[in-house]
């Protein structure tokens, strides 16, 4: 249990961020509407939510890697550089300041280790590049560092593998190479967008172990995106739950798993099967209905159309972010309105 609120100084704070995609022949899509996240050094925040709810978009926004047709019309992404906070949301995405953060301060690993590496450059070349770029070493020194990094992330025969092309490596090794690349300049924040989804279960466990161990060694903060609540339980210190562009609940993993406050989080936890004998098994209760598209999102709480507790203000008024216990917040009218009112 955290003793004092905000014990450590947050490294990155996202406040009320929204992301809009425009297209020439359709109405704009507000893919992300209200995101608040706080990342602390040495801690892992898991971002979970159904497919399409905006996790990847949020992660890319932090590095300003969104497509050209994306805008961040409101909200702040405050990054603590050590010499005071910078609002990443207001930087130009190809500016020097932004590029100095990318790769050096914040780096990212992706879901598809195959297609995320260039197929026509060697692993070594691709890692050397980032070291030469940020740490201004010469090619040879960079290569030495690359080899020791590959060694550190558990690539056997690192010296030879540095000269290999991605298609010559297995999926697990490729993901290790990606991790080596991401850690090459000892970033303060590592964003991992479903880094294990494309791997088999054994490899998945190895990579999770590796990430945990590397976090201990490097002391970086980690934003870990996943679908998988099992993985969350294994790796995360904190969890943030997203639904249709909103972060609906954030808090300590143990807290949130034990006492989820938002009806969506509750439904999520309910839909995970527990281990029990066959006779005692209950049917899982899936969440009724389907996720609407961002275009059909209600003005108020995004979950209104599927929420079993939806009442008066839900459809029209956006619920405020409410602190339920230290460091545990949720957005739901149930938390601010009297029960009686809810059933009135």
């Amino acid at each position: 249990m955290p003793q004092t609120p905000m014990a450590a100084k947050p490294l990155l704070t996202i406040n009320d961020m929204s992301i809009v995609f425009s297209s020439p022949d359709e109405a704009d899509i507000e893919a992300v509407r209200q995101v608040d996240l706080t990342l602390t050094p040495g801690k892992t925040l898991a971002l979970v939510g159904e497919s399409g709810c905006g996790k990847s978009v949020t992660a890319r926004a932090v590095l300003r890697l969104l497509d050209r047709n994306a805008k961040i019309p409101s909200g702040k992404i405050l990054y603590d550089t050590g010499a005071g906070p910078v609002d990443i949301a207001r930087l130009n995405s190809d500016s020097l300041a932004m590029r100095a953060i990318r790769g050096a301060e914040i780096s990212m690993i992706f879901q598809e280790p195959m297609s995320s590496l260039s197929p026509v450059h060697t692993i070594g070349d691709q890692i050397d590049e980032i070291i030469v770029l940020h740490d201004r070493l010469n090619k040879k020194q960079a290569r030495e560092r690359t080899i020791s990094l590959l060694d550190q992330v558990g690539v056997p025969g690192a010296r030879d593998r540095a000269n290999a092309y991605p298609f010559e490596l297995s999926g697990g090794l490729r993901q290790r190479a990606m991790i080596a690349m991401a850690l090459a300049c000892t970033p303060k924040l590592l964003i991992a967008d479903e880094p294990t989804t494309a791997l088999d279960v054994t490899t998945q466990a190895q990579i999770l172990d590796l990430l945990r161990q590397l976090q201990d060694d490097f002391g970086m903060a980690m934003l870990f995106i996943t679908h998988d609540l099992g993985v969350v339980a294994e790796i995360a210190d904190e969890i943030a739950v997203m639904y249709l562009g909103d972060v609906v609940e954030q808090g300590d993993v143990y807290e949130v798993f034990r006492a989820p406050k938002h009806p969506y989080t509750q439904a999520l936890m309910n839909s995970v099967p527990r281990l029990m004998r066959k006779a005692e098994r209950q049917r899982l209760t899936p969440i009724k209905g389907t996720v609407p598209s961002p275009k059909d999102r209600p003005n108020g709480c995004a979950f209104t159309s599927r929420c079993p507790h939806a009442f008066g203000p839900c459809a029209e008024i956006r619920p405020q972010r409410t602190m339920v216990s230290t460091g545990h917040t949720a957005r739901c009218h149930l938390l601010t309105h009297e029960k009686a009112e809810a059933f009135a």
Partner: protein
Amino acid sequence: MAVQSMEQIVPVAVPRRTARESQFGLMWRRFRQHKLALVSLWIVAVFYLIAILAEFLAPVDPSDYSARYTYAPPQGLNFVAQNEDGSWHFGPYVYAYKTEIDPVALRRTFVLDETKRLPVHFFTESEPYRLAGFIPMSIKFMGVENPRDPFYILGADRLGRDLLSRLIHGTRISLSIGLAGVTLSLFFGVVIGGFAGFYGGWFDGAVMRTVEFIRSMPTIPLWLGLAAAMPKDWSALQTYFAITIILSLIGWTELARVVRGRFLSLRTEDFVTAAQLDGASDWRIVTRHMVPSFTSHIIAAATLAIPGMILAETALSFLGLGLQAPIVSWGTLLQDAQNIRTLATAPWLLAPGLCVVVVILALNFFGDGLRDAADPHGR
């Protein structure tokens, strides 16, 4: 703790059912969305209509010459004029010519005589002729009041022949040779490509090597070599068919490739397997199941092959080894424009080139539209 991916929570949306629609109905609906392709379809249609109605639309016979009007410039076609008394004249007319002596080159040149108007009439009486070779007619689309007056809307060539009439008749030849060449290529392509794709094996290998081989050769030298072997004394019709055959000797390869590819991918499709399990004969499978499912692709590919044919005919005739003199095609017409000095005095001789460009563009856009409509996801 057992773990489940969250994606499974979300029930799969049931795809919206679309009304059953015929393959071509669907294709047409998609095709109509390509504005450029639709416009191109109209352009192509107009050109083919011109080709069909050539005798009716051409003011005079393409071989009528008049030495008096060598390289007479285009008269254009005017509709409104102010008379000398200030009143207005409405109705189609052209200006007559007057001759001037060019003081520098000491050459006789024609200029339009703006004082003399020759009224133009539509649906004028003419010498009897046969439309498309068999419908007897004696009405032309338009003509000047007095048939002896000069009527050169697009100008005249060296022998004083009317370029417009020649262009219209050339359109018939050039477009029909494109169509005939593609039809022949299509026949070869479907038969050869179909066999290769359906049976595979060594035959497929041999066909594909042949296709690659032919496609790796420069075509114009080959065409020239083949065309040069045509006996000089062949009739116009014989040359026409010979050229068609020569063009399709190379043209079939692309179509065969498309057909083969389609066959190969269809061979493993469920409905073909099902038919095979039902004991249907190969012939039945091919004609009843496979061909109908890709006619639209073939039509698109064939359309896209027409421009190449037209260009090839134009090039061959332009070089003097394709269609020969009495036959009028865009290529033979452009032969007159080969000399740069001639071109400088009579730039209107390039008009057939403009037709080539417009038709090629239109056919390309039209074909692209068809292909997209036939296969919206492919490419």
